[in-house]
């Protein structure tokens, strides 16, 4: 008998008389003041945010916010900021040190400030984690109320690796003192677009 067979056999013996039926729950999604709630949530997780209306503006914002970022990876072609030439790099360790990464977020969650990143689709999976500073650009119209809706929105999407990112990395492991900037990014800026510019979002539209 393999370990798998032994384990499954033991479970079968154990679960007799224990059949709890799974309740079917319908969720009422929160639709009120999502933008305000999202911004408040960002503040509470030490993320900064700015609103913008067109891409040219973002270049200005980024340059003034993070001046002298020598080593940068920009994954958004509409933003005219040049960075490391990824085609010349074949190992993520070559990115290091990485000052700034600019990536797209698919949508955001109002209740907690989380942003869904289809990380598997990035040129390299380390991009949002290895950098000192992270910029995530999102469509301000693409905000859901809570995590129930967030999972509904990403249901059936074929990703290889997806992450909800909620602010810069943190730890309180030394005497419960919150320190922003643990192993991942030490600063995070969310750029929120006033206009709906992601025409072909990768996610399901909520009716």
């Amino acid at each position, binding site marked *: 008998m393999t*370990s798998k067979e032994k384990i499954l056999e033991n479970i079968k013996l154990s679960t007799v008389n224990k059949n709890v039926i*799974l309740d079917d729950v319908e969720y009422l999604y929160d639709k009120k003041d999502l933008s305000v709630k999202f911004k408040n949530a960002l503040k509470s997780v030490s993320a900064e945010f700015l609103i913008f209306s067109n891409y040219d503006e973002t270049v200005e914002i980024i340059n003034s916010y993070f001046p002298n970022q020598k080593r940068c990876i920009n994954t958004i072609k509409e933003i005219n900021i040049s960075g490391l030439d990824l085609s010349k790099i074949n190992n993520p360790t070559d990115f290091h040190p990485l000052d700034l990464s600019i990536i797209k977020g698919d949508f955001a969650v109002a209740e907690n400030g989380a942003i869904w990143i289809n990380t598997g689709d990035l040129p*390299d*999976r380390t991009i949002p984690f290895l950098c000192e500073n992270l910029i995530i650009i999102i469509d301000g119209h693409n905000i859901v109320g809570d995590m129930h809706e967030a999972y509904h929105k990403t249901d059936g999407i074929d990703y290889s690796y997806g992450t909800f990112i*909620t602010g810069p990395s943190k730890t309180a492991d*030394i005497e419960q003192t919150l320190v922003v*900037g643990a192993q991942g990014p030490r600063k995070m800026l969310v750029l929120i677009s006033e206009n709906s510019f992601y025409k072909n979002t990768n996610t399901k539209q909520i009716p």
Partner: protein
Amino acid sequence: MEVDFKNKSRDFVSDVQRSKWHDTALWFVRSKRDVAVMNVDNWEELRNQASNIKEHCISNLDKYLIEFEANAKKNGVYIHWAIDGDEHNEIVGKILKSHNIKKLVKSKSMLTEECELNPYLEKQGIEVIDTDLGERIIQMRNETPSHIVLPAIHIKKEEVSELFAEKWNTEKGNNDPEYLTYQARMSLRKDFLSADAALTGVNFAIAETGEVVVCTNEGNADLGVNITNLQIHSMGLEKVIPKRKHLGVFTRMLARSATGQAITVYTSHFKKPKLQGEMHVIIVDNGRSERLKKDYFWTSLKCIRCGACMNTCPIYRRSGGHSYGYTIPGPIGAILTPNIDLKKYSDLPFASTLCGSCSDVCPVKIDIHNQLYKWRQEIGKNNVLPKTKSVAMGIAGKILEKPKLFKFVFKIGRITLKILPDFIIYNKWNNWGKARTMPEIKKRKNDKQRKNIGKY
């Protein structure tokens, strides 16, 4: 050797300042949890759902594990099954060996602590680096975690500073947590960049899609897994949940219960390996399917390891996690351990006031305090009562059998507590008098109230 909770906790309590700090720090975390929970409209409803999903899943574990395995395989993931900790370690060792791995970065995983993976791998000549800051501190001090979410909660910043100065040559006497965290970041960066495999724990595994979900704050799990080409995820078999949509319930509850955050900084869904990468998931039993057999106690398998029951527990807060002598301390540890070895851990179910606060905060509604009470009965029935308890309980049993005698003893107690000097209460035969003051004797309540007490 039996775990001697009272003596171990005495060591902890005797450092008055530290134990006071520990108590206050954890109560602060508990208070943050309360605020976070109050911000959710339907928290109690969420608890019901979480409990229902877990109970359903655990009572159909074979079905969901098979479904999980099939879907994960479709995603190109290798699945392994380990009957116990030894087999788990052997599997990890084999995978690493077949890739000629010299250095492994690990993110927090209580399961690998349970299996004692680190010493096993180190014996094989593989360097293991724990990358969660708290875990790293503990690893460098050759200790075990004292809390499942805040592993280094028992250590003071001055001690961290000393440790880093000794090992990494950092500035002596600089106790600033921000400075110390940055030094650890710099050191761990080198480890990430030079590692060739990563191992993480698993918070949830989804049967429907075959993905595993890992929740962290520091970014260490994602860094490790993505920098290296070989990723291994170790999961206890109770981590599987039926559908992706159920993550909505658990991701809303886990961090709120654990630290008072609305969600962890990273909630990562690992589904397929990266191009040219390899992804392995090890499903570990290590006594869990045995636990499932126990009629009353099986619901302890619902635990999502949030740590809320520890933060709220008046005994845990004042005794420190190491007093429990097991990887998982606190109220949940005290109901898990008797399953493993009733005699060895017979002290732990008594390390409780049965106040019920643990059950109140538990997001998956495990009735922890009732289980503690039932374990006490099991321990009595099996004659493995800790010595100090068996003598006292024998006498108490006799007294409680006879209402008249009880009344008499109660009366004497009231009088003696009033007049006895402290040295009688705080002597070496009365373990619970240590670091505790006796209650003030209040004026008598009316008889009706007293009668009601007996009804519970």
